[in-house]
């Protein structure tokens, strides 16, 4: 009876939701409805004088009810019902098509599992899924696509991008009664924050992801170069330390060859002994050849290795051939000036201009490139100061610098990105009055609140842990030898009592703390804006050259100053730079080029028209326009998709105020496999995390029997949302007739017609 009157079963109404789907145009009729109601009420008011109040009330209520029913029907009432539909749920199966699936470990390759389980005719897992679900197959690797069957797989993709794959499948199955996704993979994929965000979106949409792990979770015997850390850009001739991380299983205590090769030339070769687990090696490298260098680090293969492709890894290094310009301003005659100049005199990449105040208002210039350079003493214009890459402030009392020059020094570091080295001296730091100036902010060391003239202490400097990996302070090829050298250097004199560094600064050298005295700061640095500032508050580092205990052949003083000044001037931004998102990618992958562009005064240029010139491995040049990244000042990006394997050269060009400027050239390598052979063990942690985040399950390859059942418990995946028209329910018509007849009958009964 209920269903006859209301058209739908009662549980529709208890579970459903009533909505009015009144079209917008009908809203325009609202004033007419109001007008009609007003006329109705007016009519009743007029006849109200002829009939009694109770009669009026009854007829008005009955008429109003009838009109309300009509209006209700006209407003297109719908019942929105969420309900399971009898149709089968859809399952998306993502099959890993990456090259790492070809790996075998003495038996079948990983891909064999997919070929056995997902064969259209005989695959048991695919069959069991298809018995209960509408199963759709997808191939994923560097890109994702829907496939008919596994004959479309070739297991040749580069870096797997699971995040992109999940998003693709979600979009492809949009609107389908999705019961869940199944990812069949070795888990050798790049995990990222974006992946996590995608999974959270799946969780919000109640889409469960089930992972099936293929392959070994740990190789019995394998060595892998897991990571290379190398500076992005160095000055030509700099000695750099590359940090090489190696993972291995099954070869504890073995020795093997390590080679670093640059364009076929062996840069470095050594025998290394490998310990258990993961370990790092500092590899000293010379950088004699300028330009974009593609360095290949290679480990010799050992018998029985699971994968040998991961014994080599590439890194890109840009070797800058230009001479950096450094200004050393000394406020009084000091031997430090002579010996710093002497230490870097042979360095072809450092042009050290010296300006020493010798008497009141009398300056002596050395190392200048033109007669006009420093003619007026310390630079009085930004153009002049900003032409240097780094600045050394010696024992320079504050009064020697005007307020404008002090501000220029701050901008030199923060905006131009120059390096500043603050030396100790009787007129430096608080003793020079810096503590009451803007120079105080620049210093990584906390200056004393007031000067302590006459203070003097001989201290022996010791390296901190940070110094032992700092490129400027490595005094020997290995950390052990470097420490040993530091500990035998003679003491130096400090006349600036500094015992604290600022939060965020890094302490590199310090004296040993005494029983009743804190340690003195020997060297500290901090980033300040675009640049960096080093405090080296000693006044006679030249003793490391001239002390009686220093052998004539000893190069410690020269090495330290060359490294320190190179590091200080290194990375000082050019007006146009270029960074790449990676050293190497797979064929078909994308490389993001990023360029920061500055105007001649080193402020961000937000109106530049820059282009990247890409030279492919076959020598073809491709020009791509860069687009401004509006979230950052002066930053431009372009995405480059590459298919052809080999080395690519990239530079950015720009026509700025009529002058063509070009960035240093950078380089990257494209290989078919990308990074697929690194960390290629089956990764149960990642697959488990994906399953856990979405409410799915992780199943090892041999234990997938319960998968169909686990998916079958899915209830929400087959949920369907339906809307049902209510305007034509019989009950509405019956009530309408009832109200109208009742009014008519009442009128007849009361003789009101």
């Amino acid at each position, binding site marked *: 009876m209920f269903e006859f009157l209301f058209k739908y079963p009662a549980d529709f109404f208890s579970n459903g939701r009533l909505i009015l789907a009144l079209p917008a145009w009908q809203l325009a009729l609202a004033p007419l409805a109001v007008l009609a109601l007003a006329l109705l009420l007016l009519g009743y008011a007029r006849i109200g004088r002829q009939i009694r109040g109770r009669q009026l009330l009854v007829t008005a209520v009955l008429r109003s009810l009838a009109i309300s029913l009509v209006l209700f029907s006209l407003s297109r009432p719908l019942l929105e019902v969420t309900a399971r539909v009898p149709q089968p749920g859809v399952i998306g199966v993502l099959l890993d098509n990456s090259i790492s699936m070809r790996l075998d470990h003495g038996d079948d390759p990983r891909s064999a599992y997919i070929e056995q389980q997902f064969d259209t005719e005989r695959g048991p897992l695919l069959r069991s899924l298809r018995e209960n679900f509408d199963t759709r197959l997808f191939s994923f690797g560097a890109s994702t696509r829907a496939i008919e069957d596994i004959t479309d797989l070739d297991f040749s993709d580069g870096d797997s991008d699971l995040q992109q794959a999940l998003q693709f499948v979600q979009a492809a199955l949009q609107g389908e009664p999705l019961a869940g996704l199944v990812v069949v993979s070795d888990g050798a994929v790049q995990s990222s924050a974006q992946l996590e965000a995608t999974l959270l979106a799946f969780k919000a949409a109640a889409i469960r992801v089930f992972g099936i792990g293929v392959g070994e979770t740990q190789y019995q015997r394998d060595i892998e170069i897991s990571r290379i850390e190398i500076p992005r850009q160095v000055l030509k001739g700099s000695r750099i330390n590359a940090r090489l991380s190696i993972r291995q299983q099954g070869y504890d205590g073995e020795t093997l060859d390590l080679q670093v090769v640059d364009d076929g030339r062996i840069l470095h070769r050594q025998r290394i002994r490998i310990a258990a687990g993961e370990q790092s090696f500092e590899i000293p490298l010379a950088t004699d050849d300028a330009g974009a260098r593609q360095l290949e680090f290679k480990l010799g293969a050992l018998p029985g290795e699971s994968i040998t492709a991961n014994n080599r890894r590439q890194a890109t290094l840009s070797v800058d051939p230009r001479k950096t310009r450094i200004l050393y301003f000394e406020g009084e005659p000091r031997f430090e000036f002579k010996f710093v100049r002497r230490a870097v005199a042979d360095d072809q990449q450092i042009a050290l201009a010296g300006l020493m105040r*010798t008497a009141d208002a009398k300056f*002596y210039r050395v190392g200048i490139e033109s007669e006009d350079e420093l003619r007026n003493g310390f630079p009085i214009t930004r153009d002049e100061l900003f032409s240097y890459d780094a600045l050394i402030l010696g024992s320079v009392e504050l009064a020697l610098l005007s307020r404008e020059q002090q501000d220029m020094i701050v901008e030199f570091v923060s905006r131009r990105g120059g390096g500043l080295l603050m030396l100790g001296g009787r007129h430096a730091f608080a003793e020079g009055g810096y503590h009451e100036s803007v120079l105080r902010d620049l210093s990584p060391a906390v200056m004393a609140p007031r000067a302590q003239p006459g203070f003097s202490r001989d201290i022996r400097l010791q390296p901190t842990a940070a110094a032992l990996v700092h490129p400027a302070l490595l005094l020997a090829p290995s950390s052990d030898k470097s420490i040993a050298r530091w500990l035998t250097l003679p003491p130096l004199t400090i006349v600036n009592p500094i015992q604290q560094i600022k939060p965020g600064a890094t302490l590199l050298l310090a004296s040993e703390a005494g029983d009743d005295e804190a340690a003195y700061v020997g060297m500290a640095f901090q980033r300040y804006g675009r640049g960096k500032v080093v405090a080296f508050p000693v006044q006679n580092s030249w003793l490391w050259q001239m002390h009686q205990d220093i052998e004539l052949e000893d190069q410690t003083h020269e090495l330290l100053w060359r490294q320190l000044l190179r590091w200080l001037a290194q990375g000082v931004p050019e007006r146009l730079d270029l960074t790449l998102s990676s050293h190497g990618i797979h064929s078909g992958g994308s490389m993001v080029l990023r360029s920061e562009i500055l105007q001649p005064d080193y402020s961000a240029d937000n109106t530049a028209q820059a282009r990247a010139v890409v030279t492919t491995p076959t020598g073809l040049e491709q020009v791509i326009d860069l687009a401004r990244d509006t979230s950052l000042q002066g930053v431009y990006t372009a995405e480059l998709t590459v298919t052809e394997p080999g080395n690519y050269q990239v530079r950015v060009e720009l026509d700025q105020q009529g002058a063509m400027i070009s960035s240093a050239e950078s380089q990257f390598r494209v290989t078919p496999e990308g990074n697929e052979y690194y960390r290629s063990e089956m990764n149960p942690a990642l697959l488990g995390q994906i399953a856990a985040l979405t409410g799915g399950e992780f199943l090892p390859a041999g234990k997938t029997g319960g998968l169909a059942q686990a998916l079958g418990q899915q209830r929400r995946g087959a949920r369907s949302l339906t809307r049902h028209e209510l305007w034509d329910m019989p009950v509405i018509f019956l009530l309408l007739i009832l109200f109208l007849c009742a009014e008519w009958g009442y009128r007849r009964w009361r003789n009101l017609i």
Partner: protein
Amino acid sequence: MPTLAAAESGQAGATAESSSRALADIPGNSHEFYFTRGIYSGEFDDYDEGGRWAIDYPKADHQFLIALKRLSIIDAYESDNAIELTDPRLRRFPLLYAVEVGSMSLTEKEVLALRNYLLAGGFLVIDDFWGSWAWEQFANQMQRVFPDRAIVEIPLDHPVFNAFYNIDRIIQVPNVRQGWGAPGGGPTHEYDGFVPHVRGIFDDDGRLMVLINWNTDLGDAWEWADDSAYPLKFSTYAFEIGINFVIYAMTH
């Protein structure tokens, strides 16, 4: 007016104590510059009166330091500082002054110490030796220190001549006795040292290590600068070129 004898006497008295006293006096302070006089072994050393290294010492050193501190802003130790060439602390003083080197007769240890000092970055200023005989003696000693390095004339356009003052000619600075007579047309030279020279020894990178003032006596001009009878032009020149040597030594 002080006499030469008085000067010689004062010099001898100071000398007897200096080789031990001056080193002991070097404080653990942190002056940037010490005007350091080299004590070397000589053929004519007379231990009653001191060695030839101590000619004009310490008054010349003191007077030079007064001028240096007045005319420049160098944080200089105001007193003398004499040190033996074999003293291990020699290398703490990157500028070394030595006189009367015609009598120099270095021991092997001194030869080695001086060579190491100069190669490490030390700078030696030679003064007050006259004539060809003294030159031969000195050149022989330098030959022992640097067998393969030549002594060459330093041209006037070398930076040492304009490090502080612009020196456009080399003046022969006479000793005090001849200085008194010079305004009257007396000779300024000693022995056959008629023409003054500034010569040098350079290292492999072209850096000046040894600066040799031959046939001239800057030290006497410093010492007697307070003597109104000693011509101002000589003492002025001596101070100017002396300060140039110091500034050069601290910048190159």
